């Protein structure tokens, strides 16, 4: 029984049209009786399956959801207000705390937005490190998601073994930047540090192990009749609904829309990397599961490509007006030291204007809207997080489903309340 690596048989892809999906959705949702006696229960904020401190008031008819009223804000930290009082550099740790499972993706989104505003570009090596970090975040996030999602359906062991594999990524992050969760690794104009010695070997070992483990997960859960029964045909959300409720990320791709900002609006080193966008067409919970599983395989391939093609060179742009110089330069040259002092005490020089930059984070499209008035601090920073809109869509996602399913459906759109409440 030692690691039987068997390729799972790809089932023939059925591509239902939008009309078919709508019909299926109509059928899967149970109609509420006219004379329903409604029982109102409050789910959350300390309910174990709301993935944080989300609260939703449910009107139940038996076990069928009649109406839902989502309530957010239990984790609101006023991040947008705080950002107006900090220089662009100091905002980076704040963005860690958005979706703390994939912090680097948020760091990067913010830095890309600021770079776009400043009109600078990160050096190629930094861009490859960013892409690699982004995919590491994706693997870590999807593994966490997978464990929690299957646990929502009742299988508890799965969560623990997913955490075990996630530990590879956590260790690698610790090696790369010194923190396991809140990385603060991206910098305006590059990344904080270069890859350390021994990182590449560990990374290659990890991306060889993870696909093997993913196939083991397939043996464990993918064909399980209970999981199939629970996941197939529930929570159907068509591409039209996704657009109306701004559902992005894997949930959108599971509805048959081939939209991935890594391809559509490339950032970091993605234009130079070959990868496939995982798309499924059934728009249900199982399709979202498949999309994420395939994305993890793709991520491993992308990381391997990044390691292969990574060019040599600096990891921080040499730009005296916008970039805080690297530590070793500060120790070495007086010009860099002056630059360091100027940046810390006065901040970078930013042209007035406004930019909107979206990146594809593991859980959806995260966008930063930055308004600059020419000062060292943003005049307005709006963080448009996917989870915010995923939480908002709960009435459309839940109504007509059963109580036991809504935890699975809510999990399938991947919500992190830190990101939702900001």
């Amino acid at each position, binding site marked *: 029984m030692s690691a039987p690596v068997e390729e799972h048989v790809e089932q023939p892809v059925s591509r239902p049209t939008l009309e078919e999906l709508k019909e299926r959705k109509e059928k899967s949702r149970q109609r509420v009786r006219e004379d329903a006696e409604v029982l109102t229960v409050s789910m959350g904020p300390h*309910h174990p399956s709301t993935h944080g401190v989300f609260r939703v008031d449910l009107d139940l008819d038996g076990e069928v959801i009649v109406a839902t009223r989502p309530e957010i804000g239990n984790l609101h930290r006023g991040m947008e207000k705080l950002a107006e009082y900090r220089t662009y550099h100091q905002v980076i740790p704040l963005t860690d705390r958005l979706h703390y499972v994939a912090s680097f993706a948020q760091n990067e989104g913010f830095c890309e937005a600021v770079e776009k505003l400043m009109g600078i570009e990160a050096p190629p090596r930094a861009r490859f490190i960013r892409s690699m970090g982004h995919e590491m975040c994706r693997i870590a996030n999807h593994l966490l998601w997978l464990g929690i999602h299957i646990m929502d359906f009742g*299988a*508890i062991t799965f969560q623990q073994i997913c955490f075990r594999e996630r530990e590879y990524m956590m260790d690698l992050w610790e090696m790369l930047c010194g923190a396991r969760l809140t990385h603060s690794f991206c910098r305006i104009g590059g990344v904080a540090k270069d890859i350390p010695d021994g990182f590449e070997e560990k990374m290659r070992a990890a991306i060889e192990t993870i696909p093997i483990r993913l196939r083991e997960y397939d043996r464990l859960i993918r064909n399980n009749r209970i999981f199939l*029964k629970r996941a197939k045909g529930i929570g159907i959300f068509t591409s039209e609904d996704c657009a109306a409720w701004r559902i992005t990320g894997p949930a959108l791709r599971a509805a048959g829309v081939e939209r991935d900002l890594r391809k559509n609006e490339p950032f970091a080193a993605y234009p130079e990397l070959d990868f496939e966008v995982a798309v499924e067409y059934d728009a249900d919970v199982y399709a979202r599961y498949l999309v994420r599983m395939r994305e993890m395989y793709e991520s491993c391939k992308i990381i391997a490509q990044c390691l292969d093609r990574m060019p040599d060179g600096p990891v921080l742009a040499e730009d005296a007006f916008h970039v805080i110089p690297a530590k070793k330069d500060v120790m070495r040259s007086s010009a860099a030291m002056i630059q360091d002092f100027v940046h810390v005490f006065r901040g970078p020089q930013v042209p007035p204007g406004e930019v909107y930059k979206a990146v594809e984070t593991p859980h959806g499209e995260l966008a930063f809207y930055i308004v600059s008035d020419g000062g060292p601090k943003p005049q307005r920073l709006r963080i448009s997080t996917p989870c915010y809109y995923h939480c908002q869509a709960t009435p459309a996602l839940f109504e007509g489903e059963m*109580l036991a399913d809504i935890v699975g459906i809510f999990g399938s759109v991947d919500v992190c309340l830190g990101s939702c409440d900001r």
Partner: protein
Amino acid sequence: MTQFIFLIIKAAIIFFFCVGLAAMLIWGERKFAGWMQSRVGPNYAGPAGVLQTFGDLAKLIRKEDVIPDTVDRLVFRMAPYILWVPAAVTMALIPFGPMDARIFSWSTDLVVARFDAGIVLFLAMGSLAVYGIVFAGWSSNSKWSLMGALRSGAQMISYELSMGLSLVGVMILAGSMNFVTIVDYQAGAFWHWNFIPQIVGFMIFFIASIAELNRTPFDLPEAEQELVAGFMTEYTGMRWGIFMFSEYVNMIVMSAIMATLFFGGWQAPFESWNVVPGFVWLIIKMMFFIFMYMWIRWTVPRYRYNQLMDIGWKVMFPLALANLAITALIVTVK
């Protein structure tokens, strides 16, 4: 008079055996779950953590016993005991050795109650246990708990039926409802055991017993992820501990019943192996089923409420009926 003393002794042995084994199983399940999840499990209290349950017990007893303001106090306090007393009663029916066994100069039956309608009593007691859950859920005065209780009631009704029907096959074969007679019918080597002619009945009984025990994949009344532990949400301290405990007592009873009815009870798999005392074989068989329960629990997800009903009524019930009809037919033809 001697028989009466023996009865008391046997009952005490069975009772303390159940309690002690349940305590060990709580540790065992946690340890086994830990192993399956690539971690060590409890290992601080005693060697390999075997005293973990007693540590928990000390903690639970010392904890404040919170009874919420709005509960129905009498029912709320009663519910935990209702859940586990019927299970312990059923244990009296299980024969753990041959009848008229000689102990020194006395002779006694190695069973507490040689009851002619054993299976009926077992089913009746099984149905009583659900009152514990329903009372707990209803008296808690919490919506989540109430939903757990409702689910439990519905689940019991649909699975008790197929469970009972799956046992009728065994009854027809043995021609008795007495556990002792059923074990005697299975005398000989393991190919005389009931699970071979009654494989379908056994599968149905096994699945229905998981549902009766409220364990994954049928643990809907508890359902941490949906109902936040369902009927026992409002319980704290030792009252909650008794719920936990009764789950394991129930598990012991179910596995003992299964071993007795389908796997030859205390009989050894080969006649020559009968030198080992009967209760050892019974415990080995019971442990196997308990192990299976645990293994399944930590592997599979949970069914949804309406799917559970579908399986109960549309799959298991017809199968049990068909099994019964075929068994009856074969026995008649013979």
